[in-house]
């Protein structure tokens, strides 16, 4: 326990430092050269217009969005894996991502004909995505709950079925789409931070505050849930409330982020595992550490995505998978070899 305690301490000290470094590096890197010392001038307003625009107008919101998305997806993944007691669970399984994709496809393909969609302008897609994700989660929860008891297995199975069904509906929409809509849809599916704005970040923050608050509240109950539901109930924990709050936290963390930046895989599944391999299963450490590592990983990945093939951009999901997989496999192999996991 002591060894794990030390590791957790160093991780929770080291990870924020790594995140700050990654953010500074991300601010510094890009098509336009901006020196780090300009940051200070920028903050005090003593810097020229161009640097201000690049740092504050373009890179700032993009980095903020990448950080928040990485943290949100990692926390959602941790909660899902804890709740479902399944290492493969990710936010996509709860019907959130697929519902958001369906709603987004609806707006992109059919939205032009709807007055309220054109009235919402640039907010139409994120708003539809958020509404869709919450509706998807609600529907799944409704299906899996009988007599006040939610079956986790039913939810997992219904989530898979629901994903396939909404995938088919999205397919029909793609089939109907014109060239412009098709391009927009493809762009959304691959996930990108290139459209990040401060107002987008502003839209995300309240949802993530709710998700974060719930995650803090759920850390200990999720530990107990790993001993199975009966034992959690016998130990005095309100099992059904834990389940519904967990699903709410996942919907709040995933729905808005997926709606704003598109579907980014990998982070939600792998980051919690990376953290568990390092510090063990205690959610009181795993949740905050996953949030910070997710933020760091996605900020780093996005920086690479926009600079490696500059001036073109690689979809960020490709970078996360290419970078993260070898690291994950190495850690997994090491833990098997040493017997420490």
């Amino acid at each position, binding site marked *: 326990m002591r060894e794990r305690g030390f590791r957790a301490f160093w991780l929770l000290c080291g990870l924020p430092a790594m995140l700050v470094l990654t953010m500074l590096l991300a601010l510094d890197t890009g098509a336009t050269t901006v020196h780090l010392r300009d940051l200070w001038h920028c903050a005090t307003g003593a810097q020229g217009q161009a640097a201000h625009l690049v740092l504050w107008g373009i890179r700032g919101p993009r980095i903020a969005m990448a950080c928040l998305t990485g943290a949100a997806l990692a926390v959602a993944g941790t909660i899902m894996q804890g709740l479902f007691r399944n290492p493969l669970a990710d936010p996509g399984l709860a019907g959130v991502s697929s519902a958001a994709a369906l709603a987004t496809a609806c707006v992109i393909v059919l939205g032009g004909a709807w007055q309220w969609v054109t009235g919402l302008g640039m907010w139409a897609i994120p708003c539809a995505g958020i509404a869709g994700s919450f509706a998807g989660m609600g529907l799944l929860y409704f299906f899996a709950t009988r007599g006040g008891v939610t079956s986790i297995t039913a939810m997992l199975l219904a989530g898979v079925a629901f994903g396939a069904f909404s995938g088919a509906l999205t397919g029909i929409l793609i089939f109907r789409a014109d060239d412009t809509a098709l391009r927009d849809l493809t762009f959304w599916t691959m996930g990108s931070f290139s459209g990040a704005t401060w107002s987008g970040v502003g839209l995300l923050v309240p949802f993530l505050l709710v998700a974060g608050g719930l995650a803090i509240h759920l850390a200990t109950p999720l530990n107990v849930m790993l001993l*199975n539901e009966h034992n959690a109930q016998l130990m005095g924990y309100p099992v059904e409330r834990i389940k519904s709050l967990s699903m709410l936290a996942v919907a709040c963390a995933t729905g808005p982020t997926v709606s704003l930046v598109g579907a980014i895989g990998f982070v939600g599944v792998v980051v919690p595992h990376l953290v568990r391999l390092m510090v063990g299963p205690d959610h009181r450490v795993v949740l905050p550490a996953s949030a910070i590592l997710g933020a760091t990983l996605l900020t780093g990945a996005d920086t690479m995505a926009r600079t490696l093939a500059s001036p073109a951009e690689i979809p960020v999901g490709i970078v996360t998978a290419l970078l993260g997989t070898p690291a994950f496999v190495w850690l997994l192999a090491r833990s098997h070899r040493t017997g420490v996991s």
Partner: protein
Amino acid sequence: MTLELRHVTWRQGGHEILRDITLSFGRGQVTAVIGPNGAGKSSLLRLASGLSAPTGGQVVLDGRPLAAMSHRHLATQRAMLTQDSEAAGQFLVRQMVMMGGGISANGLGMEQQAALANMLVREVGLERLAERQMMTLSGGERQRAHLARVLMQLEAARVRGAAPGFLLLDEPISAQDPAHQVLVLQLARQHAARGGGVVVVLHDLNWAAACADRLVVVAQGMVHAQGPPESVLTQDLACAIFGLGKNCVHFHARTARPFILPHDNINEETDICTSP
């Protein structure tokens, strides 16, 4: 101060598992529930713990129906070792035991909780394995780790001033070697000696008769007999309920408690009674 089942009936999946059960478990006493496979022993324990609600009748703890008590309050009054406790994967033994006090130890300092957990880990004989991951333990060791967690739940509540609670154990020695069977049952007796109530489901009739103050025999969803071991575990009962052979019930010379010696029956099919 008792845990009572009043005319309790439980149906599940269209089957009547328990029928009109009325029982009372007292504090300071070890009650062993015995019966053949599928008799409804574990179901009885589930209802007594409040894990499932009865379809008919009610379960009452110290005069209050369980249904009217909060999860939190109930957690300080009773704890249960189930048969289906998960491996708890990468948690360390000491960590897992500490988790037992999650609700009932609310208000105790971390040091006090850690001291309590250490004491219990020692009592169940896992001191050397306290820093090991749960998944690296054997089945028996894992079962004792869960027993320590369950004891932690009641002990933490007791330290905070709650009345000694009820300890419900579902086959707690099923994975134990002989020495640890004694240890586990001694811990159950110790809990009763400190004023707590113990209800233990056992398959081993000898251990049931040796350690319990009272036996409750459950068969086909009903209470078939109850009382002190020497008056309950008779040759007729061994024959009728457990399908054992003739002359298998003996009495211990010193304690006068009954015990089963089925050696003579193993190869003599003619002597075996017909099961109920």
